[in-house]
């Protein structure tokens, strides 16, 4: 399988006053099409920072991140935005739904930046909402939805553009396990049926265990990257994503 995202010796340092805080200290990682990986590690180990680099929301201060063949260090802002729109679907920790906008229009938002006409946007958004089981809630505002429903809206929004990679930062963190399991079922279905690569940052052992590949981070570094199915370091295998 081809690489969707290629991370090479990526570092990310934040300037805080006079000092530099190193959030990532040289990380290399390949996300392949159809991958299903979980990123675990203690708080502050750099999981969110890594996910932001993978999604082109942020750029490394050293090393490189190549998304779908585009080096995020060298492309312009507009091009990076286009890459985020076409290749990546993001599920944020706090969902970030727009409070004054219906579930349907929240889901349709990414299509605005793809130049899709309004009627077509709404059609595709409705289809996506139906896929996550929220057809009946399309006209509701986020505030009128439960936490689990809000999360499904966020996932529908991430998937509406048909991305190659879905990135989720602790998506089940604040949900009861029944809703979380249902959600994972949905994501895994997309992964196996449509080959959408999943990269999920999680604290939840159950969520991590369901991924085919576990990446453990500590102190800005990847300390292990294992494939559950073969129990081998992914560095040595080339075809982990399509095992069935």
């Amino acid at each position: 399988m081809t690489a969707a995202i290629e991370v090479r010796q990526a570092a990310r340092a934040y300037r805080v006053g006079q000092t530099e805080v190193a959030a990532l200290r040289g990380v290399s990682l390949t996300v392949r099409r159809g991958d299903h990986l979980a990123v675990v590690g203690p708080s502050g180990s750099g999981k969110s920072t890594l996910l932001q680099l993978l999604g082109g929301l942020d750029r490394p201060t050293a090393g490189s991140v190549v998304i779908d063949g585009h080096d995020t260090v060298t492309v312009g802002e507009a091009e990076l935005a286009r890459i985020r729109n076409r290749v990546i679907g993001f599920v944020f920790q706090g969902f970030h739904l727009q409070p004054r906008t219906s579930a349907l229009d929240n889901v349709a938002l990414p299509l605005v930046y793809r130049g899709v006409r309004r009627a077509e946007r709404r059609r595709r958004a409705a289809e996506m909402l139906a896929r996550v089981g929220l057809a009946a809630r399309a006209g509701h505002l986020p505030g009128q939805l439960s936490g689990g429903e809000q999360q499904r809206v966020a996932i529908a929004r991430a998937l509406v553009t048909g991305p190659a990679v879905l990135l989720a930062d602790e998506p089940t963190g604040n949900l009861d396990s029944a809703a979380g399991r249902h959600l994972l079922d949905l994501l895994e279905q997309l992964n196996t049926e449509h080959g959408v690569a999943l990269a999920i940052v999680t604290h939840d052992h159950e969520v991590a265990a369901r991924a085919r590949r576990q990446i453990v981070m500590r102190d800005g570094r990847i300390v292990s990257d294992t494939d559950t199915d073969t129990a081998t370091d992914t560095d040595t295998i080339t075809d982990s994503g399509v095992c069935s």
Partner: protein
Amino acid sequence: MRIGEAARVAVGALVAARLRTGLTVLGVMIGVSSVMVLIAIGDGTRREVAGRVDELGSNLLLVVPGKVEIGMPTISRMQLSDVEAVARVVGDPTRVAASVASGELVQAGPVKTFTTVAGVLENNRTVLVRDIARGAYLSRADVDSARRVAVLGATVARVLYGGTDPVGRQITVAGVRFRVAGVFAPLGQSLGVDRDDEVHIPLTTAQRLFATTRVDGLAVRATDPAGMAALGDRIVAELGERHPDSAFSVVTQDQILSVLGDILDVLTGVLGATAGISLLVSGVGVSNIMLVSIRERTREIGLRKAVGARPSDIAAQFLTEAVLLTSVGGVLGIALGVAATVAVERFTPLPTLLTGWSIALSFGVAAGVGIIFGVLPALRAARLDPVPALRTE
């Protein structure tokens, strides 16, 4: 992002912040309407002045003592004999009008009014084109015999006699008794001056009444507009010969018009600039409101960028919002400006003229204010980094 989508988002955001939107729109409205009213007054005055010149025709020369360029009024050394000398230069005494004027108390029975009393020749009515509503104008004999007859301006007639006909009645001018020979047809106001507030009496009578031999100025109706400059030069030369130590000037209606036009331009400019300052202040208000709006919606901007909005999409969205804000203010300001202009026309002596051009300009300026004062906030929004933007509360 399509402009329709940007407009939809902008409307939503502006409606969500109603109070703020309302106040900003109000500021733009006031700026736009004041610019409009002042332009309307300037245009109205200009039209009135042009109308006055049309009335008098363009072949009128005014002869005044002193140098016009200096602009200071000069006491005239001209006398009746100078009027006759100018008439010889012109070749036709009926074309040369002369006058001496003074402010005097005029009384009819118990009613008094203070007005401009002008001593004139009988040809004044034809040279300066005045219509008589009642009775007759002064005659050659009135001037020759220095009779105590008067022709009243419409305002003076109304003040002294109300609705009744004053012709044949007695008035006193500076305490001396006069008979009313006629009443002028009303002229109305010009540049805020009531042109019907005057009384004409024979020049000879006036010189006696004011105890002077002076003539203040001459008006010459030329036959040939093309030869006016040459005629003016000959008149000035003749008067210069007769009064070697005095200066005289000849001005045409066109020159007066152009000087008045220049003054009006400056005045309109100053007033317009003053109104423009209020527009500028409203523009700063727009900037401010946009910055507040952007700070409040930082997370929304971060999200839009995360799902694929380019910096130009974000800039376009906020610029659309700013322009929409000022355009709404512009449209409402035009409505307010039209209403205010109608009120000025009705309740003040100031003339007004609304033109499509000034309405278009007002709207254009409002939209322009939105662009100019919206650009900086829009660019700031466009440059926001998505990760920190998403993290803000």
